[in-house]
């Protein structure tokens, strides 16, 4: 008898009042020919049921690698997790055996990907792929699984689901493919859903639809949602709290409205100022100067210091800890007070 997902990690609660998912001081490195790439350097965040956490950051900031480490789908080697914990209802997933993790993937924690076309298998019909979740994990018959697949396609609002259940992924448009991916990921009612840039490959109008769909599904099932994105516009409406990542670290943690009103880290501030506004028409657009850090050769001290307008001498030497601005907010900037005040450095 194979152990089931609920035997691996208890269905409810856990020890004490553990959050649904807690990432604690996670480090991920990749051994490459050019040297050791430290992609994630001590990331911590928590997620409660029914909550949406947006992980924000530019390419290479480690946001996707963190998600893949939570899912346990990093290729190891070359990846390594030298330090850190990923606690799911109090159980450290990183210490579980591969079989146990396979049980959790899909059933308890699921993930959707950026490019749904390449994330769907081109040789099988979408109905077969959605139904696979039920056949593999629930031991359903082919026919029952297909019925469930149609139900799910209805749930993610794919028109004429019954007729389209036997179509192949390439016969759907981009937004519809992402809906199918979402249908697969919510098939088994996971408690945590990680969406890795779910709307990046889509048109703006479709982006809004997909975000609304995700938000609605989350409300219905009370799952925790981790939304990985580099698009500040996508985040504002859906997220409860935001973790901003830079150079493999979290530089700011805050409830969503706080961050938009008063950013507590120069990088967040720069990101917000980089959003083009209509009243800027004809003027030069703002950009954070400099380049993202080279993960092979991270800047000393605060990794943002070469690009930071608030830089002081100690930024070059001292790594800033996550200072507590208030019980719900943190900022990894020595001069967070100045940033909050808005006095430019």
């Amino acid at each position, binding site marked *: 008898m194979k152990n089931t997902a609920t035997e691996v990690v208890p269905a409810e609660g856990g020890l004490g009042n553990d959050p649904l998912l807690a990432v604690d001081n996670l480090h991920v490195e990749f051994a490459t020919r050019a040297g050791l790439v430290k992609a994630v350097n001590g990331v911590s965040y928590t997620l409660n049921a029914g909550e949406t956490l947006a992980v924000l950051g530019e390419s290479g900031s480690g946001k996707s690698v963190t998600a893949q480490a939570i899912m346990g789908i990093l290729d190891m080697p070359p990846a390594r997790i030298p330090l850190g914990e990923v606690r799911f209802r109090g159980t450290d997933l990183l210490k579980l055996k591969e079989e146990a993790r396979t049980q959790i*993937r*899909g059933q308890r924690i699921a993930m959707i*990907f950026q490019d749904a076309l390449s*994330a769907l298998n081109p040789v099988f019909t979408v109905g077969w792929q959605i139904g696979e979740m039920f056949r593999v994990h629930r031991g359903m018959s082919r026919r029952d699984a297909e019925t469930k697949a149609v139900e799910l396609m209805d749930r993610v609002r794919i028109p004429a689901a019954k007729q389209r259940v036997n179509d*192949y992924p*390439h016969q759907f448009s981009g937004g519809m493919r992402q809906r199918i991916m979402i249908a697969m990921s919510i098939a088994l009612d996971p408690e945590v859903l990680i969406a890795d840039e779910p709307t990046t490959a889509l048109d703006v*109008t479709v982006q809004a*639809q997909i975000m609304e769909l995700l938000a*609605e599904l989350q409300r219905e099932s009370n799952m925790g949602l981790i939304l990985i994105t580099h698009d500040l516009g996508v985040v504002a409406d859906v997220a409860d709290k935001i973790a901003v990542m830079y150079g493999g670290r979290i530089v700011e943690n805050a409830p969503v409205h706080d961050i938009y009103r008063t950013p507590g880290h120069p990088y967040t501030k720069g990101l917000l100022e980089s959003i083009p506004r209509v009243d800027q028409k004809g003027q030069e657009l703002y950009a954070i100067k400099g380049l993202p850090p080279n993960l092979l050769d991270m800047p000393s001290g605060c990794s943002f210091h070469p690009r930071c307008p608030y830089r002081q001498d100690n930024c070059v030497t001292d790594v800033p800890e996550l200072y507590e601005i208030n019980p719900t907010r943190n900022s990894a900037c020595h001069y967070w007070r100045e940033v909050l005040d808005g006095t430019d450095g």
Partner: protein
Amino acid sequence: MSDIRPAGPPHPETEHDATGQAVAVGTPEPPPDVKPAKQGKPASLWSDAWYDLRRRPLFIFSSVLILILLVIAVFPQWFSSVDPFNAATCQLAQARNPPGSAHWFGTDNLGCDVYSRTIYGARNSIVVGMSTTIVTAIVGGLLGLIAGYRSGATDTVLSRTTEVFFAIPPILGALLILAVFRTGNVWTVMLALAVLAWPMTFRIMRAAVIMAKNQDYVMAARALGAGPGRIMFRHILPNAVAPVIVVATINLGGFIAAEAALSFLGVGIQSPDISWGLMIADARDRFLEAYSPLLFPALFLSVTVLAFIMLGDAVRDALDPKLR
């Protein structure tokens, strides 16, 4: 993976999304301007390839030839009233007769009917060709799948092993293997050919698997809880099998030719069993006196090999539209 996207006719892409307005949250109805799903059968890789194949003259021609050969191989008695295994049908007095009404393809050195022998010889060629293809596809394919998926030490060991086999000259290797068995028959010839040919299938499968396993859908399958077996056989294999099928079809003709060569050299199928290669060998000394005992089996052999190579070409074009 773009290169295995089906070719075939353009699929009417039904756009539902960009309606210009978001679907209202909580509305169970689909967006208003949605057309019903397109008609016709869904277009899988295989149904597309089949659609494509049916329209290729090369495919039709070669498959008709192969079909005829298969019928000949299974029911030779339908084509020849003479049983070539019955020694009484050979009459030394009639040796080396030219083609005529009694013996369509003439008679050989022992006065046996060349036509019936050629017809009955098809079976061994087809059996050797097909069984060798199946065995190499299964062995090479399976090991290639494992090597490509597991990579690391497993891959290194298997890949170096295949390189050892690649270093053996094929005919020499087959001669050696058959010498070990001492007897030549359909199955030992099949085994000798399979031992030497599986590394090719292995390499092709391994390369296709490595390409397929790095696709997002494999990672997505993992992220949604598929175990290694399911990922290998359900997600990678169907996406990696096309090149193996192509090579297997083309190789089938090659195995038939190799069987004839080994039988010709005297280590393959042995008399009194019948093989085209054996017939060619028997007829070669007296070729100038009687051409027909050599010409007809050679003709059948060439046409058979050609038919399988043409079929393989057609299948490749259908499965891998990029090569066109």
